[in-house]
C-alpha cells in the first residue's frame, strides 16, 4: 500500500491510498451511524443464498442414485481393513478354530527390526522401545486398531497420490484446471466437512474414515510425484527414449525409480498425515487411540486421556522416524547374483520369522500375545495428581493470565474485526489482491470472501479470522525470534530441530489435551493449542530463510564494520523476509486447519459450524462452512504468496 511512498519517482499511478482512506471512512461512518446502511453492517437474512440447501438436495439425489454403488465399494474396501484389524488386533475365528492376532512381542520386535533395516541400531532401539511403551502402558489394543487403519490407508493414499501426480505430470491442462484446484480444496477444506457426504454415501464404521483419510493424506503425494517426475534429469528421459522404451516402460522402469528419493519424501508425509487423520476419524466410529482420548476428555479422566495421548505421540514418533529413515536410505551394494529371497531381503525374512514364531508361542504362553493386565503400568493417577496440583496451586495465576489475555487482547480484536462491515472487508481483500498481483487475484479474493457473506456465515467467518489472526500473530511472535536464534547458533539449531520435528510429528489433536486441562474450554485454550501446532512452521521457515542469505553479503557487511546486531537486523532479516513470509503463510494455513479441531473444545467459529453439521449429518451446511474456511485459507495463501513474490522481485532474488 505504501508503494508510492517507497518509489517517489515511479510512474504516476493510481493513488491507491485514496481508496484505502475511503474504505476506512466508510468503516468509521457505519460504525458511528449504523442506520445509514443496515444491510452493510449486518448481512440481511432475506438475501442469504441457500447454497447449503442446494448442496443438501444434490447430495440427497446422489445418495438416492448411487448409494448402492458406493456401499458396494465400501464393502470391498472393508475386506482388507477387517483382515488388518484381525491380524493386528482381534484375531480370526474360522470354523471354530481361533487364530490369534500377532503377538505384541512379535510386533515390537518387528518394529525394531524395521528400524534396524532403515536406520541402524539407534533406530532399532527407539522403535522397539516405542512399541514396548505402548504395551506396558496398556494401550496395545487401541494402538493396534489405529495402526491397522494406518497400514491400510497409506497404500490407498500413496496409490491415489501417484495416480493423480502422474496425470498432472502428463497433462498440464488437467493439472491447471482440475488437479491443482482440487488439491487446494482438499488441503484447505476441513476433513470434518466432507465426512458427512462420505458417511452418507459409504455408511458408518471404519470405511468412511479410511476414505476421508485418503482424501486428506494424498495431496502431498500428488505434489511430490509431479515434482519428482519433473526433476528427472533430461538426459535420463532422452536415454529412455533412445533405448526404445514404450511410454509405460519409460514411466515405470526409468522415471519413477529415478524419482524414488523424492517420492519417498511424499510417502513419509502421507504416513504422518494418515496418522493425524486416523486419530480424528476414529472419533466417527473407527475406534482406536483418538476415541480413547476423546472419551477420557469428555469424562474428565485427565490421567487416562494423557496416557492415550502419549501413546499417540509414541506411535507417531516411531512411524515418523522409520519412514523418514526409509526415505533417506541409499542403496549400497547389490546382493550377490543368484542369492535366494532370504539373502536379498534379510531383515524382512527375519521379521516375518520372528512374528510367526512369537505368535505361535503365544498359543502356549498367552503373556506373549497379550501383556497380562497386572503387568501393565499406568501413570494415569500420577498425571491426574499433577494436573490437580497445578490447578490447586496455580489456578489463580493461570486464570488471571487467561482473563487478562481474553479481556485486553482477544476481545478487543474480536470486536474490531466483528465491527468491520462485510462489504468493506470484501473490498479491502479485493483491493489488496489488485495491488499485489492484478485483477485476477482481486477477483478471486473478492468472490471468495463474498461467499461466506452470501451464505449467511459472516459472523462466524469473522470469528474465524479473529482467532486465526491472533494465533498466527502469537506463533510468529514466538517462532520468528526462535528461528533467527537457531539460524545463528548451530547448538540452538540442533535443539530446535528436535523440538520442531517433534511438534510437526504430533497429530494435531494431541495439542488440545494439556491445554484444555489447564485453561479449560474457550478461546484462550484454542489459541494456545493453535500456537503450539503452528509455531513450528514459523521457526522452520525463518531459520531456512536466514540460512539462504548469501554468505558473501554477510562478509561484506562484516567488512564494512557492522556489529552482529546490525548484520542481523539490517542484512539477514530483510533478505530473509520473503522466506519468512512463506513461513507466516504456512503458519496461517496450519492455524486455520487446527481451528476446526479446536471446535471440539467449544469455539463458536466456522470450525464449530462444520463440527455441528457433522453431528447433525447436515452435509450441505458442513460443506458450505468448510468451503468458507477453505476460501479464507486460499485467499490468505494467495495474498501472502503474492506479497512475498513482489518482495523477492523488488530485492532481485530468484523466483521460487
Amino acid at each position, binding site marked *: 500500500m505504501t508503494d508510492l511512498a517507497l518509489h517517489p519517482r515511479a510512474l504516476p499511478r493510481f493513488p491507491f491510498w485514496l481508496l484505502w482512506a475511503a474504505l476506512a471512512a466508510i468503516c468509521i461512518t457505519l460504525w458511528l451511524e449504523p442506520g445509514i446502511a443496515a444491510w452493510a453492517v449486518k448481512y440481511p437474512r432475506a438475501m442469504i443464498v441457500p447454497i447449503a440447501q442446494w448442496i443438501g438436495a444434490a447430495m440427497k439425489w446422489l445418495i438416492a442414485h448411487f448409494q448402492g454403488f458406493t456401499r458396494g465399494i465400501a464393502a470391498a474396501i472393508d475386506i482388507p481393513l477387517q483382515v488388518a484389524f484381525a491380524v493386528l488386533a482381534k484375531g480370526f475365528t474360522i470354523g471354530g478354530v481361533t487364530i490369534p492376532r500377532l503377538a505384541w512381542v512379535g510386533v515390537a520386535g518387528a518394529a525394531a527390526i524395521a528400524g534396524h533395516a532403515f536406520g541402524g541400531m539407534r533406530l532399532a532401539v527407539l522403535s522397539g522401545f516405542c512399541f514396548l511403551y505402548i504395551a506396558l502402558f496398556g494401550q496395545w489394543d487401541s494402538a493396534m486398531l489405529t495402526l491397522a487403519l494406518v497400514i491400510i490407508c497409506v497404500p490407498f493414499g500413496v496409490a491415489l497420490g501417484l495416480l493423480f501426480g502422474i496425470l498432472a505430470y502428463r497433462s498440464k491442462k488437467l493439472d491447471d484446471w482440475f488437479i491443482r484446484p482440487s488439491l487446494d480444496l482438499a488441503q484447505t477444506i476441513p476433513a470434518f466437512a466432507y465426512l458427512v457426504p462420505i458417511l452418507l454415501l459409504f455408511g458408518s464404521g471404519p470405511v468412511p474414515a479410511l476414505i476421508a483419510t485418503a482424501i486428506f493424506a494424498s495431496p502431498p503425494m500428488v505434489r511430490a510425484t509431479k515434482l519428482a517426475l519433473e526433476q528427472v534429469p533430461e538426459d535420463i528421459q532422452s536415454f529412455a527414449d533412445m*533405448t*526404445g522404451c514404450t511410454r509405460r516402460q519409460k514411466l515405470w*522402469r*526409468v522415471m519413477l525409480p529415478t524419482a524414488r528419493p523424492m517420492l519417498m519424501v511424499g510417502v513419509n508425509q502421507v504416513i504422518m498425515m494418515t496418522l493425524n487423520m486416523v486419530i480424528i476419524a476414529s472419533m466417527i466410529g473407527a475406534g482406536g487411540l483418538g476415541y480413547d482420548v476423546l472419551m477420557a476428555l469428555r469424562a474428565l479422566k485427565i490421567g487416562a486421556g494423557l496416557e492415550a495421548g502419549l501413546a499417540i505421540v509414541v506411535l507417531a514418533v516411531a512411524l515418523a522416524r522409520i519412514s523418514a529413515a526409509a526415505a533417506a536410505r*541409499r*542403496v549400497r551394494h547389490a546382493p*550377490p547374483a543368484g542369492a535366494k529371497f532370504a539373502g536379498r531381503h534379510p531383515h524382512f525374512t527375519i521379521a516375518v520369522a520372528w512374528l510367526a514364531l512369537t505368535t505361535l508361542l503365544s498359543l502356549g504362553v498367552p503373556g506373549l500375545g497379550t501383556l497380562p493386565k497386572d503387568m501393565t503400568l499406568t501413570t494415569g493417577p500420577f498425571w491426574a495428581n499433577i494436573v490437580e496440583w497445578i490447578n490447586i496451586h496455580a489456578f489463580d495465576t493461570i486464570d488471571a493470565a487467561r482473563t487478562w489475555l481474553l479481556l485486553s487482547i482477544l476481545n478487543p480484536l474480536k470486536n474490531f474485526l466483528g465491527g468491520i462491515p462485510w462489504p468493506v472487508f470484501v473490498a479491502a481483500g479485493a483491493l489488496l489482491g489488485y495491488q499485489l498481483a492484478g485483477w485476477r487475484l482481486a477477483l478471486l479474493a473478492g468472490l471468495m470472501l463474498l461467499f461466506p457473506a452470501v451464505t449467511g456465515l459472516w459472523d462466524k467467518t469473522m470469528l474465524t479470522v479473529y482467532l486465526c489472526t491472533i494465533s498466527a500473530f502469537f506463533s510468529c511472535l514466538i517462532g520468528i525470534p526462535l528461528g533467527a536464534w537457531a539460524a545463528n547458533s548451530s547448538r540452538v539449531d540442533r535443539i530446535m530441530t528436535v523440538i520442531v520435528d517433534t511438534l510437526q510429528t504430533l497429530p494435531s489433536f494431541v495439542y488440545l489435551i494439556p491445554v484444555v486441562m489447564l485453561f479449560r474450554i474457550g478461546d484462550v485454550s484454542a489459541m494456545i493449542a493453535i500456537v503450539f501446532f503452528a509455531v513450528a512452521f514459523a521457526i522452520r521457515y525463518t531459520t531456512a530463510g536466514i540460512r539462504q542469505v548469501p554468505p558473501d553479503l554477510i562478509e561484506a557487511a562484516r567488512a564494512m564494520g557492522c556489529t552482529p546486531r546490525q548484520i542481523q537486523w539490517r542484512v539477514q532479516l530483510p533478505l530473509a523476509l520473503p522466506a519468512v513470509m512463506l513461513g507466516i503463510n504456512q503458519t496461517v494455513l496450519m492455524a486455520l486447519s487446527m481451528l476446526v479441531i479446536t471446535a471440539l473444545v467449544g469455539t463458536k467459529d466456522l470450525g464449530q459450524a462444520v463440527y455441528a453439521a457433522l453431528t447433525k449429518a447436515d452435509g450441505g451446511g458442513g460443506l458450505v462452512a468448510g468451503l468458507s474456511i477453505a476460501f479464507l485459507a486460499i485467499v490468505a495463501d494467495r495474498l501472502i504468496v503474492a506479497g512475498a513474490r513482489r518482495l523477492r522481485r523488488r530485492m532481485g532474488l530468484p523466483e521460487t
Partner: protein
Amino acid sequence: MGRIMANDDRVKLACRGVWKVFGRGAEEYMANDPTPTPDGLRAAGLMAGVRDVSLDIGEGEIFIVMGLSGSGKSTLLRCLSRLIEPTAGQVFLDGIDLLRAGEADLIEIRRHKMGMVFQHFALLPHLSVLDNVAFPLTIQGVPRPEREARAREVIELVGLGGRETAFPNQLSGGQQQRVGIARSLAVKPELWFLDEPFSALDPLIRGEMQAELLRLQSVLKKTMIFVTHDFDEAIRLADRIAIMKDGEVIQLGTPEQLVLEPADDYVAAFTRNVQRAKVVTARSVMGPIRNTSVHQIVRASDKIADIAPAVIEAGSPVPVIDEHEMVIGSLAPQVVIDTLIGKDARA
C-alpha cells in the same frame, strides 16, 4: 558451401535441409517461408536452433559436430536421432526416412540400431552396473541369462570387469561414463550417438577416455556421431568435423582441411592454436618425386608429428607412398621442420 561426401563409403545416415525452429507457430511459419532469414524469424518471435543442415555420414565414420554452447550442435544431434522433431527436412537412415517412421517403428529402430551416450551419464541410480548395462536388453524382453551374459561382455570391453555389483553413485565420473558407453553398446547398435560424453570429466580422465574410445572404435567400427565443444577433442577423434555456429554448419571437412583451409575467421580462431604437425599428413606437404638413396619411406596418410624424427634423421628427402605402395612424392626434412614450428609449409 559445398557438401563433402564421405569418400566412397556407403552412406549410413544422411539429412537434407533439416531445420529446427523453436517457438509458437513455427510449423506454419516454415510452411509459408521454407528459407527464412534470422531477422524474419526473430520478428515472428521464433528462434532457429538448426538452420538448413544437410549431411552425409558414412558407415564406420567418426563424425564430429563441433560448436560452442548455443550453436545448435546438441539440437542437431537430437534431430538426427529424432529425440526432438525437426521442423522441416528429412533424415535418412540406410536410405529410409526416419521422420516418417511411426511410434512403433521408431521404438524398434532405436532398440536395435541406435545407442547413445550422454553428457551427464544418465545412469539409473537404482540399478547396479550390470542391470544398468543390461537395461536396454531388459526392456526388449531378452531373457535374464542371455542379457546378463551380453552385459558382462561389454562391461569387460570397457574395462570395468569386477564392478558389476556396484551402484552408479559408488563410481567415479570416468567409471560412470564407461558404464554409459557399455550400456549404449549392449544392443550392438549400428549408429552410435555421443552427446558431449567427456565434457563432464576432468581433463586427465578426458584424455584417457578419448584414447579408450579410439581403441573401442578400432575394434567395433561403428558409425559414430559425436558432439563436442572442444576443438582439440574433435581434432583428435574425428574422421570429419562439422563446425556449427548459430544453427548452421559453417564448415565441413577433415581435421587437416579445417586446419589448412579454414573457411572463415571463426573457424580460423579455433585452428590457430592447433599443433599443425599433429593434423597435417605427409600427402598435403610432400614435394614431387625425387630420386633418393635413403632407405626410409613414409605413408601419405602419416601425420607429420609421427614421422618427424625419422625424416629429420634421414637428412634428405624421403619417398612418400600411397595405400597401393606406389611412390607418389617426397618429403624433405626442411618441410617437416617448418610444419613442426607452425610455418605454412604447403608445397
